[in-house]
């Protein structure tokens, strides 16, 4: 059973790696998706690996990661907005 979890984690991690390679080569804005990619795929792989190796309390770490991924994206978009010279308030 554990091997199956690890296999699934490996597959997901592999798709995340491919996705990262694709996204990071894209345009400036597209690169932001890298964080999102790790926020979903990364968390899935993390949960699987942790379950298979029985690390305690990983749900909390995953919760934290999910929050941080959103936080980082907001900060980056914020910067891009400022950069585009939005209608200054």
């Amino acid at each position, binding site marked *: 059973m554990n091997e199956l979890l690890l296999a699934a984690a490996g597959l997901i991690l592999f798709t995340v790696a491919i996705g*990262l390679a694709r996204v990071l080569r894209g345009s400036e804005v597209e690169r932001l998706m890298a964080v999102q990619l790790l926020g979903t795929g990364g968390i899935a792989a993390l949960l699987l690996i942790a379950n298979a190796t029985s690390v305690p309390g990983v749900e*909390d770490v995953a919760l934290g990661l999910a929050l941080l991924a959103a936080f980082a994206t*907001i900060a980056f*978009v914020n910067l891009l907005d400022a950069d585009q010279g939005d209608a200054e308030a």
Partner: protein
Amino acid sequence: MSLLPYLDIGLALLVVVVAVWTIAARDLFTSVVGYVAYGLLLAFVWIRLYAPDVALTEAAVGGGVTGVLLITAGKRLGARKNVAPEAQPGLAFRLLTGVLAALVAGALGAVILMLPDPPPSLAPEAAAAADGAGAGLGNPITAVLMSYRSFDTMLEKMVLILAVVGVWSVGTDKAWGGAPAPFRRPKPYAPMVFLAQMLAPVGVLIGIHIFWTGANAPGGAFQGGALLAAMWMVTMMARLAEPPRIDTQRLRLALVAGPAVFLIIGLAGKVVAGSFFAYPPALAKPIILFIEAFMLLSIAAALPMLVAGPPSERADQ
């Protein structure tokens, strides 16, 4: 034959490739995006080392908050591209640096490969000492942080406060006492405000939860405080809240609350239990949680202030 070693190697390669990307990226924005991704990936490595506490801290402080600090600074610097090309060092210099870096990395790697096996460890003694100091906490890491190294933990919180003082004092004289520049000049738009409104309460709940479970499971004041700090910054980015003026009483009280409470209780320990930072064993857990709660407050206040930077003269709006 297990799959795990292959997974580990894949993960290690991924971390190194993303790290190379952040160093090689052409502009600051790209490299900071890479750095945040790298922070999240590094959290995986720490999970594999059975260190979820460190994983969470690395992702939160090392990746997330540091990334936002750098990106905010980049925006304020107004230079998202590299400095003038003539500042680029020549090929010979680059080669030399590469060789030096490779040598350092190689030496470190060799040391790691040559570590004795089975390794010497003080872990049992340390854990016993942590227990002996009367900390009735289930999480050995929090127990160590709180009792075995009380001085260190407190001094490190002081480092945070000193850094806040340092950042504030870098501002101009005219701006002293004012508020740091807002995280965002333009008016926010609906989806961002929505996300901040939804995320912040959930995030605060999760932050407090992680602080609370920290006594028995991975988590603690650092991790919880970093998440709370991130949520405060989210509300400031959506302009649901503004950075406070640095001369507000409440802000300053929040900043010093953690170390102050720690110090007072430490001194009380001298009187009640006979030595500095000694707690009566029966009360150890409630006392430690009490101290940690104030630490949480101080960390949650200090991190956003560090990111927000010195007070700004143009703190209008």
